[in-house]
């Protein structure tokens, strides 16, 4: 990969921007109950007319101290808490956590042999949830810009995915389906039929979304050249996922650091190209998500074609899981970006320390930088394009 940033110290983002004329500033609380902060994010903004001169996020309205809870719960029990991190992509959070525990076990000399069939199930379900999460991102982004209809259309397709998940694991939002060593149940036949049906129907819907919103001139005017993030800034702020890719950096852990069986599938990593504006603007980030849905669809299609005959879905794991003493940081590509778990084990049944690196937490930080000098409407557009999930930021 090319060297994307010229190395120099960057000035701290605190401080106001210069004012052209002498005018009074207005301090406004945006949130925690605000329609476009996507949950309970509170932004303390200073405005000069319509211009935002300073943005300070205040977090913690959804804080549950999950990391402390992890220290009191067994490795199995903590899976259900990972559901509640990125609640729009709970399957992926489960997966990342299970992956981290499995890899920690492996690296410490414990054999974890995940069945081939289970790996395929994991990929299919994980990618379906990626589509579901991006659908919400797409829909709520339309809502932020003022178009309400795409949101309902996106929810309709998401509902199809949730129906599949309900058949697979019995829940519609908090799945806790992945388990350390595999998945808890296999995919029932009727759910498999629904997945195939979904594969058949989805691309047409995607085209429709593109016609309804992506290409709309008003939408393009609202998002192109707004909230531009260059690649160097993104990397400095630790952004990952569609935010980083929207800035033109081709980085996806599924390709760059392949886990599970992603190296067997043929898919592309979409990056922002500045089709209608500058590279790294809101439209690029949005469009990367739209393209990623298509890529996920391709992965699911291949996985459904190649899935081996039904077999075991769980590796042979001890009932009372004990992880030998040691530590490790393992990560996976979630819909929002790179999610990682840093697990320190002391040899017991509970983690000694389980730190979560949540992508939205790092993506949020850039608001301080990019929010300055924008209009209030642009700030809403930018927040929407970052696709923040407060469950994950506050943990």
């Amino acid at each position, binding site marked *: 990969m090319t060297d994307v940033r010229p190395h120099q110290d960057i000035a701290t983002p605190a401080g106001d921007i210069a004012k052209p004329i002498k005018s009074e500033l207005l301090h406004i609380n945006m949130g925690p109950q605000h329609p476009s902060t996507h949950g309970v994010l509170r932004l303390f903004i200073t405005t000069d007319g319509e211009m935002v001169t300073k943005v300070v996020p205040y977090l913690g309205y959804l804080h549950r101290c999950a990391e402390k809870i992890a220290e009191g719960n067994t490795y199995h*029990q903590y899976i259900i808490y990972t559901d509640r991190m990125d609640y729009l992509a709970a399957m992926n959070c489960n997966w990342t956590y299970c992956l981290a525990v499995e890899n920690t076990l492996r690296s410490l000399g414990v054999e974890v042999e995940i069945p081939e069939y289970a790996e395929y199930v994991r990929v299919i379900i994980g990618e379906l949830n990626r589509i579901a999460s991006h659908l919400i991102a797409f829909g709520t982004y339309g809502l932020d810009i003022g178009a309400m209809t795409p949101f309902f259309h996106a929810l309709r397709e998401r509902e199809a995915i949730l129906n599949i998940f309900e058949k697979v694991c019995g829940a519609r939002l908090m799945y*806790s389906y992945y388990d350390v060593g595999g998945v808890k149940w296999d995919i*029932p036949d009727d759910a498999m039929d629904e997945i195939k049906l979904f594969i058949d129907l989805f691309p047409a819907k995607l085209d429709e979304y593109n*016609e*309804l919103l992506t*290409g709309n001139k008003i939408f393009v005017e609202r998002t192109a050249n707004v909230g531009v993030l260059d690649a160097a800034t993104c990397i400095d702020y630790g952004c990952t996922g569609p935010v980083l890719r929207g800035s033109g950096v081709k980085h996806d852990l599924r390709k760059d650091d392949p886990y599970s069986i992603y190296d067997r599938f043929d898919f592309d990593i979409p990056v922002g190209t500045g089709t209608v504006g500058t590279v790294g603007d809101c439209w690029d980030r949005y469009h990367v998500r739209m393209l990623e849905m298509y890529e996920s669809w391709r992965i699911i299609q291949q996985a459904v074609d190649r899935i081996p005959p039904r077999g075991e879905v769980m590796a042979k794991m001890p009932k009372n899981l004990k992880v030998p003493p040691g530590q490790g940081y393992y990560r996976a590509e979630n819909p929002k970006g790179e999610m990682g778990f840093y697990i320190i084990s002391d040899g017991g049944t509970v983690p000694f320390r389980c730190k979560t690196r949540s992508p939205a937490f790092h993506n949020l930080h850039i608001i301080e930088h990019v929010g300055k000098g924008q209009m209030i409407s642009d700030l809403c557009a930018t927040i929407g394009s970052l696709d923040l999930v407060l469950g994950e930021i506050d943990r």
Partner: protein
Amino acid sequence: MVKFVTDIWDTFSTVFKGMGITARYMRKKPVTQQFPEERWALPDRFRGFVHNDVPRCTSCTLCAKACPVDCIYIEMEGKGKDRRMTRFAIDYNKCIWCSLCTEPCPTNCITMSHDYDHSVYLREKLVYEFVGDPVIPFKPKKAAREEEAEA
């Protein structure tokens, strides 16, 4: 100037395209269900309210231990043969429907039912008591033998 004209043209054409899509949907039948009248079929694995089949409960407390939010309360009195289960309660204020409690159950007596609409007006009513008078815990043959061996 060219951009000025093309912008206007783009705006009109994309707006009409969008209006075409929405007009198409206006003629289609909605996909939503009218909930109280129409109910969708619950899948087999649906995780509804937790149900305890008390006559088969061995009061082994494995479910309470497995629960990540500690919402299952099991109380017992007496020892050995006089052991009675005085309480088996589930606090649905805390329950998160994760089904972790059903996995270790030796007799499959604690299960996830298909009920999902038990709303109540008072939080206290969400504490479900499954045992009234003290009951003798169920003893499967093997478990009983183990208990004897322990004693």
